[in-house]
């Protein structure tokens, strides 16, 4: 009747929700695809090559390390996702050795040194991005103008980049970023920023498609609102308060919309500050984490010299995650309202 030797015996619970690590990872990958297609559409085939190369490097590294560890882990999709995000974070025409190094660094050093999936405490894709940014700053800060892909590609600064240079010029006489860019001969509208008609990293430009993808993830309960809302909210507030200071327009005059839609903030806040492995476990922890990211992004973007505000603030906050997790305890059942056990 039944071959009892083939019955599975395991500890309770005996059934499981339909989700799995692999399902989550591949869903995130899918939700990112539209933004990537857009990037390839406006920057040309070189962008596609960069993305593919990043993914291949990441997956190959994962497969190799899996071989050493006698455990096949490429199917779980996390390495693919890391590779994809590395690719999305590259300028469209970057020399190909750079995404390769970034992916290898992400997978080998940042992820597997610590024991693989979930053991890493820093976001692999971002650490890879920052690693190559500091190593090869020049190529990492060369951008393509939209719809110029192909042989005669034209380079130009990102909106945020040229604004940043403006901060170092002493006298600005404009009301805000949009006007400044106009005066520089780089006219950009909010609509351009929103749909992604601007120079930038391949996957970061289209705020619209990123938002749509993230909505899918929210619906599938893969993303919770905590990090994105805390991150973007605190960032927007600080920008509104102080963002105008360096434009010379004083307090409470920051151009929130411009800053939210530019510089990869969307990609960072929706997809990279939400990487489960490297963010706090609890809702409260995630809100603290998000606010930290928002503050640092604001600080670096407005006062720093580096164009890497989003990447850097997320990996700086990654350092704080173990500490945040330690001090954001949930209330345990049967412990009264506040009673905390000491010495934990």
């Amino acid at each position, binding site marked *: 009747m039944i071959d009892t030797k083939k019955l599975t015996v395991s500890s309770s619970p005996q059934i499981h929700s339909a989700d799995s690590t692999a399902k989550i990872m591949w869903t995130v990958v899918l939700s990112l695809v539209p933004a990537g297609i857009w990037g390839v559409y406006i920057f040309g085939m070189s962008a596609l090559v960069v993305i593919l190369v990043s993914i291949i490097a990441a997956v190959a590294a994962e497969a190799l390390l899996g071989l050493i560890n006698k455990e096949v882990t490429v199917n779980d999709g996390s390495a693919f996702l890391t590779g994809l995000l590395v690719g999305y974070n590259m300028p469209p025409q970057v020399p190909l050795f750079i995404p390769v190094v970034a992916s290898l660094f992400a997978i080998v050093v940042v992820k597997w040194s610590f024991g693989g999936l979930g053991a890493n405490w820093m976001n692999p894709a971002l650490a890879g991005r920052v690693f190559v940014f*500091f*190593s*090869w700053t020049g190529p990492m800060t060369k951008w393509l103008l939209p719809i110029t892909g192909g042989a005669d590609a034209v380079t130009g600064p990102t909106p945020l980049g040229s604004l940043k240079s403006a901060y170092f010029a002493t006298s600005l006489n404009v009301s805000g970023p949009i006007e400044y860019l106009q005066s520089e001969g780089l006219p950009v509208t909010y609509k351009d920023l929103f749909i992604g008609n601007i120079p930038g990293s391949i996957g970061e430009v289209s705020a619209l498609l990123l938002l749509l993808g993230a909505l899918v993830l929210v619906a599938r309960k893969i993303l919770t609102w905590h990090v994105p809302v805390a991150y973007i909210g605190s960032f927007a507030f600080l920008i509104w308060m102080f963002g105008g200071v360096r434009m010379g327009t004083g307090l409470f005059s920051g151009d929130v919309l411009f800053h939210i839609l530019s510089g990869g903030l969307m990609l960072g806040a929706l997809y990279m500050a939400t990487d489960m492995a490297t963010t706090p476990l609890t809702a409260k922890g995630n809100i603290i984490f998000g606010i930290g990211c928002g503050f640092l992004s604001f600080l670096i973007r407005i006062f720093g010299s580096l164009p890497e505000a989003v990447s850097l603030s997320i990996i700086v906050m990654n350092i704080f995650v173990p500490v945040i997790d330690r001090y954001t305890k949930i209330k345990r059942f049967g412990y009264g309202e506040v009673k905390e056990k000491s010495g934990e």
Partner: protein
Amino acid sequence: MFNFLKGLFKENPIFVLALGLCPTLAVSTQVVNAIGMGAGVIFVLIGSNIMVSLLKNFIPDEVHIPAYIVIIASFVTIVDMLMQAFVPALSASLGVFVKLIVVNCIILGRAEAYASKNSVKDSIVDALGMGIGFTIGLLVISLVREVLGSGTITLFPMGNFDGVIEIPGLVDAPVRIFSLSPGALLAMGFLMAGFNWLKSKKKED
């Protein structure tokens, strides 16, 4: 002989004892610095080991740390002044870390653990072993860092040779992180892991 070899591998001050890390990481951006630093440390180690060993009965126990430290500091200052006078370029690139040899944990450690209990001759051997072990560690790290981080190997200029070997390919686009602080720590971590691996290989044979 055994004492000497011990410092090289089994008790390598950098990879095994994890001591003297600051200068190791700070000055290892160029091979030439590593050589200079290593020479300085060997000099100070030998000098202070000799003096501590000689004076072991003279120094009262209660103040032995200040006493040892004064001895070490003197040798360090001598090295510092000599470097400033005669190899100014090296002195400049080692910067404050020459003075910091004084707090290099290895030196006080050897004075305490070894020289204060052993004869002058043995102390010299110990100092040499430890010093060379330290220098070798430093050399390995600086080689990795300079090759990756700058694409060069900087040695002393001699005759026509300007002292810099350039690694084709890397020199134009080096992995600059390795010449900065994160690269130092990363390189150190992986070299140490490699060292552990070597050790376990040895044990198995």
